[in-house]
Every structure is written in structure tokens, then in C-alpha cells.
């Protein structure tokens, strides 16, 4: 099962390596990991996507909680939550493809944030599935490069992760 684990960690040097080291040492899987400071700069928030059985996910959250720098851990996927990922995609945009790519970008609520005679950079956000779907919606041969952030997630309504 795919799980989205969200955690608050002291924004200290080496904090990321403690988390990533835990995953590699215990052979847990990481699909994606994003991290950045929160509105309180002494804290960072991480979103980790991992795939594993219930037992493994339980161990992962327990082991994460055991890290001294980790303040709080929740498994977002246990209940209502929202996921978003950002993708930048550079495509070859010439001739009739130019119009088609613009149209597809609009349909996916993307934005063209850079344009040259022959290329576009399209910015897309959404759940990961939507970004995957964009690949299928355009001619893959036009893709020059893509970069994705991995998802960040937040609980719905009253589900709040705060110190």
C-alpha cells in the first residue's frame, strides 16, 4: 500500500540524512521525499511517500518518531488529505505542435512560464496521477526534459500537524 507520511523535524544540520539514513538502513522504500522549512524556521516539514505493508508502515512511523530530532509524525493517508506535486516540463514547441501544447496545458490548468522559438516550459501542479496523465495527453516525442518535486501533502479540515 502507498502511504503518505508527513513529519515535523528540527531544522538542524544533518536532519535530512537522519531520515534518509533510517530508510536505507532498514531497507524501507522511499518513492519521494520533499522537505523545506515551515513558517517557523526552526522546523522543517517533510512529506515522504513510501510503499509497504501495514506492519512496515507502522514500523516506519515508530522508527521516525524515535529519531531525536523528529517532533511529530502522521500518516496522512490514514484519512482525508490533499496531495500536490509540481512539475516543470520542457517541450519542443514548433509549428502545429505549438498550438496543441498550449491547448493541452490549458486543459490541465498548466501555465507556460518560458517560451522560445522552439520550446515551452510548462508548469503543472496537481496530484501525481494528473501529472502522469499529462504525459499521455501529449506526444511524448516532444518532451525534452521534466523535473518533478515529489508530493507535499496536508490533512483536510481539522487534521492539523503542528507543534
Amino acid at each position, binding site marked *: 500500500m502507498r502511504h503518505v507520511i508527513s513529519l515535523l523535524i528540527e531544522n538542524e544540520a*544533518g536532519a535530512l*540524512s*537522519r531520515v534518509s*539514513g533510517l530508510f536505507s538502513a532498514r531497507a524501507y522504500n522511499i518513492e519521494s521525499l520533499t522537505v523545506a522549512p515551515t513558517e517557523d524556521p526552526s522546523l522543517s516539514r517533510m512529506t515522504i511517500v513510501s510503499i509497504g505493508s501495514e506492519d512496515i508502515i507502522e514500523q516506519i512511523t*515508530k522508527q521516525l*518518531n*524515535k529519531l*531525536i530530532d523528529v*517532533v511529530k509524525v502522521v500518516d496522512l493517508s490514514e484519512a482525508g488529505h490533499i496531495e500536490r506535486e509540481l512539475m516543470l516540463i520542457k517541450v519542443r514547441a514548433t509549428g502545429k505542435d505549438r498550438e496543441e501544447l498550449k491547448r493541452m496545458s490549458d486543459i490541465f490548468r498548466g501555465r507556460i512560464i518560458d517560451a522560445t522559438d522552439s520550446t515551452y516550459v510548462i508548469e503543472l501542479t496537481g496530484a501525481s496521477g494528473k501529472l502522469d496523465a499529462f504525459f499521455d495527453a501529449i506526444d511524448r516525442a516532444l518532451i525534452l526534459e521534466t523535473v518533478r518535486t515529489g508530493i507535499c501533502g496536508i490533512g483536510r479540515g481539522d487534521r492539523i500537524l503542528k507543534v
Partner: protein
Amino acid sequence: MLLTGAEIVIRCLQEEKVEHVFGYPGGSVLYIYDELFKQDKVRHVLVRHEQAAVHAADGYARSTDKVGVALVTSGPGVTNAVTGIATAYMDSIPMVVLSGQVPTAAIGMDAFQEVDTVGITRPCVKHNFLVKNVEDLAATIKKAFYLARSGRPGPVLVDIPKDVSAQKCEFHYPKAISMRSYNPVVKGHTGQIKKAVNLMLEAKRPMVYVGGGVVLGDAADRLTKMVKMLGYPCTNTLMGLGAYPATDKQFVGMLGMHGTYEANMATHNCDVLIAVGARFDDRVIGDPNDFCSVPRKIIHIDIDPASISKRVRVDVPIVGNVGDVLDEMIRQLETTAERPDAQALSDWWQQIEEWRGKKCMEYDRNSAIIKPQFVIEKLWEVTGGDAFVTSDVGQHQMWAAQYYKFDKPRRWLNSGGLGTMGFGLPSAMGVQLAHPGAPVACVTGEGSVQMCIQELSTCKQFRLPLKVVLLNNSYLGMVRQWQELFHGNRFSESYMDALPDFAKLAEAYGHVGMTIEKPGDVEGALKEAFERKNDLVFMNFKIDPTENVYPMVQGGKGLTSMILSSEDL
């Protein structure tokens, strides 16, 4: 008044009432050593290898309830210490390791004797710190001691760059530490405890399974009290020996790979298993699938939530400090009108006595060659069962665990988790320093003892009158045993050729050496050794080279598939 970082380090150690620091100097800790020189409250014990410094600090901690402290230099000092740190980590031993680091400006420059200490040690410490500012030093050391001893204990490393130990600032040692990210649970959940007590009282075939957590949590007295109140059978793990007295009739011996027949059978066949400060280690439960195939109920008390339901699903988890949880259990047992089912319990004991009747710990007492089991039995007699015994890893370790009947906690020290050969001698040094005058024996093998043999020199310098009990079989015995049983008698590299004359070696270091070759001389040698209160006596017992450790649960099999003797093969 402004103090240098080095002065602050020493002041912090004094504030923590540290009496002994085990260490080895080098370039990046020179300021700290200079301050050590100028005072006499903190005594430094100069070892001969950094691994030994950490093991000695570890032995000091295991045999007391104090935090062990080691001090090493950067680079090779740290890498030598890593085995010791990992050993302490696997067994949850409270320890603070102070390491020197190259000056802050040189970090990352591949400077002389630079290693990424925080990176190298990260997977084998409870936590570690790199101190970049002298202003942070005192609070960091305070945190290190707090983390090391609270919650599930463990080693904490503080890496101190050389320039930080030279810079100056005001010294202020915080009285208390609070960390928003670290709040270990103390009291167990009363509702869970109630559930557990009910389940315990309903049991028809109960079994109490006790691990090192009870020793480290200083809860042996309460555990013993509760088990006696209930009249239930009790087994200790390798790490738990001494938590419940081995000479008591409710004790059924150690369980696990080399546990007794009765302990393993009772653990497998019980209907309620009460696990206290134990973690269902693979050497204890054998194949987890086989272990879980029995529909028993499990109560698990542990301070570490991550230990619960890690290897085996449990029915009633209780997270908390084992002593507090046992106190509450005893209180509830004292106030409830419920009593254990006397008839069921008596039937269960009858069954256990039947298993006990197998006499799985018998060995050939008429042998013309010294049997290792005999040496340990005599060691127990000669020391009145009251010595501190450290050990290394191998057959000798198992014989010591099986045949020395530990009645008190913190008397048996071994590297149960990491299984570190070389632990025995240096950890015994730590024990002896913590308990001057007490009998301390190191039961070892000729393979293991040579991994830290240089410490005989430290023992001389610090006048540590240890008794080394070398069970010399000229083999890496435990390796040989596995090769005999599982690798068609192909004894690949397990024979120890060209051994030194250990008695002479001990003498060369300035100690007393003995070689014992006849069973009739065993007791006399041990008596003489322990009568020599001021001498380190190194006893080289030439034992039966092909003796094996039984019973034995084969790796990967269930607890009940035991080989009881060579006749079972």
C-alpha cells in the same frame, strides 16, 4: 569568567559527577587532555586501543547505573571506537562518547585525521552532535547525558572540533533540559496494565519472559516480586540473566538458541506469554513463523514503542518504564480478589518438570580432559555466585551464560546484540574500576581475547586485578561447531594455530599466568586466583577442543527443534 571549550568539557563532566573517562589522546583533543592534566576530579584511564575505551566505558555503565564516558581523537580514534559504540547501541547502554574533530575551518577539506564522524556513527548511536560554537558546548553535553540515560538508553556522541575546544565563553551548565522533539514515555497506560493483569490471571499455562530491559531499568527486584506472587515459571534471555534469580525454583533457565529444553518448550507451549523488557530477538524466538503458529496471547512491556509488534504481533502492548509498569501491576495484583487458577498452574508445572527431567544441561563429568562447563560451575562455586562476569562471543560465552547461575542483575555483561569478540577484557576493566575490590572474571576464548589482548597493559597500569578465565579449545569454537553441524565438518579457517603461551604472555605484561590441563586442578587454580586479591591472574584452561554447546535450536527453525546432544545428530 570566560572558560575555554576544553575547560568547559571538564566542568561538564564534573557537573555530571563523572569519575572515570576512558580514552586515548591525539591531535584534535590536545586542549581537552591539557585540562584533564590540570585537575584531579575526573580520572582518565588510558587504554591501548579506542575500541577498548568504549567497551570499558560500556562495562562501567552496565555494572552500575551510571553513564559511561569515552574520549577519543578524530579520524582513526573515532573509527577504532565505532565497534564499541555499535556494541553499546545494540544493547541500549547509556554512554557519552566525546570525540575530537579537525578545526571547523578544515571540515570538509580532507584534512589530516578528518572523518565524517557524525555520518559514520549516525546509524549506531541514539543521537550525535557536531558542536560548531563554543557557546553551544555545555548545553550539548548536558543534552548528551540526558539522552544517553533517559527513555531507551543508548550511546550519544559529541564531536568537538579542535578550535571549539580552544575558544572561550561563559560557562553555564543548564540544570534541566527540555526538548520538544523528545519526550520518552514513562508511566505505562493504566488501562492497558489492567488488561494485562486480567489476562495474566486467566492464564492456564503462563510464562514470564524477561530481557535486558529489566536489568537496565533497575527493575529486577519488582520483576522477581511479581513472578513470586504469581508462582509462574520465568525465563531470562541472554541479556536478562540476573533479572530473575537463577537459583530460584521458578527459574527454568535461559531461553533461545542455546536455551534450556524446559525454557524453550514452555515458551513455545504457553497460553499467555508475559514479555518484560525483551524484544523477541531472532536468537531468542527462532523462526518467527513457527513461533507465531501457536495461538497464545502475548503481553509486551517495553520502553520503546518501536520494539512492540516489530517481529511478533502482540495482544496487550504496554509502553513504559518497566519498573513503573511492574509497580502498577503489583499494586493491581495486591488489590484484586482474583487469583491464578491453582489447578491449571499445578498441571502446567508438572508438565514443565517433565521437560526439566530431560536434564538437558548434563555433560560428561568423568572426562579426563577439562570440560568447559565444569570450569564455569567451579567458577560459580569459588566466587559464591557473586562475581561480575564479562564475556566475549562464542562457545565460552554460552557456557558462562548457561552454567554460572546469576542471582543478581548487572553481574553478567556480554555483547548480546552485536556479538562483539573483544568485548570481554576491556569491559571487565570498566567493571573493576566501578567496583574496586569486587571479584571480576572475564570468561573468554583464545580467539576473542586476542582481539583486545593489549589491554593487559592497561590493567597493569591501573592495577586492575581481573581474573581471566580462558576456555582454550584452540578453535574458533562456535564457528567450528556450526561447521561441524551444518557444513559437513569442513573446518574452514576455524583452527587457531600458533597460539601464544598465554601464561607467559600474561607474565610478560607483569601479571600472573597459569596453565591448567587437568580437571583435578581446576578448582585449586580458581581458588588461588581469587585469593590473589591484588593480581590479575590469567588462567589458561586447556579444554576439550571438540566440545559443543547444547541444547541448540538450529538457525531458522522453531524453538522446539532442539539438538540436545551429539547423540541427536
